[in-house]
């Protein structure tokens, strides 16, 4: 099993990935207008894990594929082209890289293999009610009690907490410290007494997010990552991973492909007004992808990501939204129905895609907040007092 993927020719590597995806990925995982649940994704996840492909970006010594950036992009690209839906990946894409960088040797040895094998499914206790994107206003508290921390508070917008086995939690360990100082980063089993989950129904009718109530939750002291009161470092690093993740053009590309499938099946390419609009959207996506590649090139040549990387998330999320609005337009009366409908033989769920693309401009720092940051940090415009 010790293949050096990075040494492979890109074409051969892509063929290998494509071949596996097309052969093994269940049809129910393809072209979905919503996030997959564990019961739906399980077969596929276990196949990936068995193949050693669950953690493409992790170093080989931690059970990952150790792909360099070119191969990582190619790997992801083949998944996207096939239309593979996102499986539960918070452990893999968020916590894993964080532990690799900041975790203790014991934490790495214990958690990483379990994440890569999908034995543990993680969720993140990050946002709080009323705090939105303003992390400095964090109110969940952790107080020391012997060899435990006792956590009290409430988290919200926790993706798929109802099926997670574990949660990582940001909590305030020093109530005196100002804002970001005094926050720590904890790991907890979801079955710890005092943790309750309440799913939140979304506009789309799904229960993708949850509230997580933390009532006197006792966590062993060794379940802290990094230093006590050092959680802000972790939070920033997570934001960094998120920025890259959220800047990916893949949602926009996926919905553009669905729009194209609808249009081809229903003969809309004979409508010049549609073609004009589709062309604009295609170029919006192509130029997003080219800009993403430019940032990736920068990373490869050793530049670090500055705040300007936010433009990818803003443009990607807003472009995806525009595309789904075009899907609704094209669907006409059928765009009002819940669930996939038949468009000249193509099965597409325009309303589902419309809803799916909404949170992209809200979570992980809303588009408004990203614009505030860019205006000041990149354009050097003066602070407003607001």
């Amino acid at each position, binding site marked *: 099993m010790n293949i050096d993927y990075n040494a492979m020719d890109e074409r051969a590597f892509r063929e290998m990935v494509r071949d596996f995806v097309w052969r093994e990925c269940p049809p129910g995982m393809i072209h979905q207008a919503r996030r997959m649940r564990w019961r739906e994704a399980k077969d596929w996840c276990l196949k990936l894990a068995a193949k050693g492909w669950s953690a493409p970006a992790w170093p080989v010594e931690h059970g990952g594929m150790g792909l360099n950036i070119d191969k990582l992009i190619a790997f992801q690209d083949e998944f996207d082209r096939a239309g593979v839906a996102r499986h539960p990946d918070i452990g893999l894409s968020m916590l894993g890289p964080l532990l690799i960088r900041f975790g203790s040797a014991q934490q790495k040895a214990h958690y990483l293999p379990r994440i890569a094998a999908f034995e543990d499914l993680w969720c993140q206790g990050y946002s709080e009610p009323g705090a939105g994107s303003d992390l400095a206003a964090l109110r969940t508290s952790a107080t020391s009690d012997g060899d435990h921390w006792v956590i009290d508070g409430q988290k919200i*917008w926790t993706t798929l907490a109802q099926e997670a086995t574990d949660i990582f939690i940001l909590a305030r360990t020093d109530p005196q410290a100002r804002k970001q100082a005094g926050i720590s980063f904890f790991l907890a089993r979801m079955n710890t007494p005092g943790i309750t989950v309440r799913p939140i129904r979304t506009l789309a009718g799904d229960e993708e*997010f949850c509230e997580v109530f933390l009532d006197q939750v006792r966590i062993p002291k060794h379940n802290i990552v990094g230093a006590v009161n050092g959680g802000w470092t972790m939070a920033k690093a997570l934001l960094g991973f998120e920025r890259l993740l959220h800047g990916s053009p893949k949602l926009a590309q996926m919905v553009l492909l669905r729009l194209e499938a609808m249009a081809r099946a229903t003969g809309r390419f004979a409508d010049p007004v549609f073609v004009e609009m589709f062309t604009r959207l295609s170029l919006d996506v192509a130029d997003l992808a080219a800009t993403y590649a430019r940032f990736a090139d920068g990373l490869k040549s050793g530049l670090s990501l500055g705040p300007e990387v936010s433009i990818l998330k803003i443009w990607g999320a807003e472009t995806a939204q525009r595309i789904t609005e075009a899907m609704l337009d094209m669907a006409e009366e059928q*765009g009002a129905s819940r669930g996939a*409908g038949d468009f000249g033989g193509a099965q597409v769920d325009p309303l589902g895609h*419309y809803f799916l693309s909404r949170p992209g401009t809200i979570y992980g720092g809303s588009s408004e907040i990203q614009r505030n940051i860019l205006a000041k940090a990149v354009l050097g415009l003066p602070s407003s007092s607001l």
Partner: protein
Amino acid sequence: MFTSIAEPEHRRQLRDSAADFLRRRCDAKAVRAAIETVDGFSRERWKAMADLGWTALLLPEKAGGLGLGFGDVAALHHEVGKAAAPEPLAVVSLLVAQAVARGCEGALREPVLNRLASGDVIATLAWQAAPGALGSDRVGPHAVRSGSSWRLAGRALFAPFAARADGLVVAARVASGVALFWLDGAPPVLEDRRLADGSTQASLSFDGVHLGTDALIAGPESGADILDGVLDTARLAASAELLGLAERAFAMTMEHLKTRRQFGAPIGSFQALQHRAVDHYIRIELARSALERAARVMDCGAAAAERGAEVSAAKARCGDTARDVARDCIQMHGAIGYTAECDLSLYVNRILVLSTWLGAARAHRDRWAALRLRSGEAA
């Protein structure tokens, strides 16, 4: 917040009584309860609306109606929209009852109109051949006379509430035009679908359906005109509901902006949000103007082309505005705006339905262009 220009006294009374009824009987909790039922609306509330005369607004007084005009229809549905009321008011009172009232002079007329006006039955209209079809030139079902009966065939799409209906007007192509028939009892549902707002729409198949000659409401000499007329009337109502929905969604969002704080200030004090809010306010006012213009033109008894152009202008403007307002209200609410428990969701989902019903904006702009630009008359 919104500009009020003087309305006739009887219309203000109609509005006030409607607003009062809806406040009492149709708050967000009541809407939520209704749309989670199998029907997707409340039969009790429907009956109460009928008792208020809402199902017979346009019917002449001698037929038991209120004898009001299109401006009044727009005003009532504007209030209905503000409440996001899910009852099939436009379907029953405008599509069905108006088709019967305008077309039928036979024995069916009185009993059907009475049953519709009383709120005892739900009925719907089946006609549409394909997505984006706007009128009598795109009727799906067809019929041939065979002795003393009509043999129907073909399909109709997007018939609202058809799987919950107790009767149906069906428009069918016949040898020399379009005829309208009354079909008593449960419509022949092929596939029933639930829409974003909890309401339902069905596609119907008329293959094998036979009707007696007494089922004819309007023959080919008038069927097409009546069909196009009731469709435009229902579009006026849908435009008014969209305006009301957009206004309320916007007003809820303004409240949210005033109360929710972030980074130490109410988010409504952030100038970028203020300017976006103003953009929506402007577009809502334009939608109101387009709606009022269409109602006025209809009240003046304009010819079909003039009526069609103005109704299409209103439906396109109200539909686009409402959808854009909905989209941005989600964004301005932040994460809470994406949840079903936020009342905004009722408005967003209903806007998503009504903005496509009886023609989405692009189709209506195309119709406006066909009616107005051909003759060289631009704006």
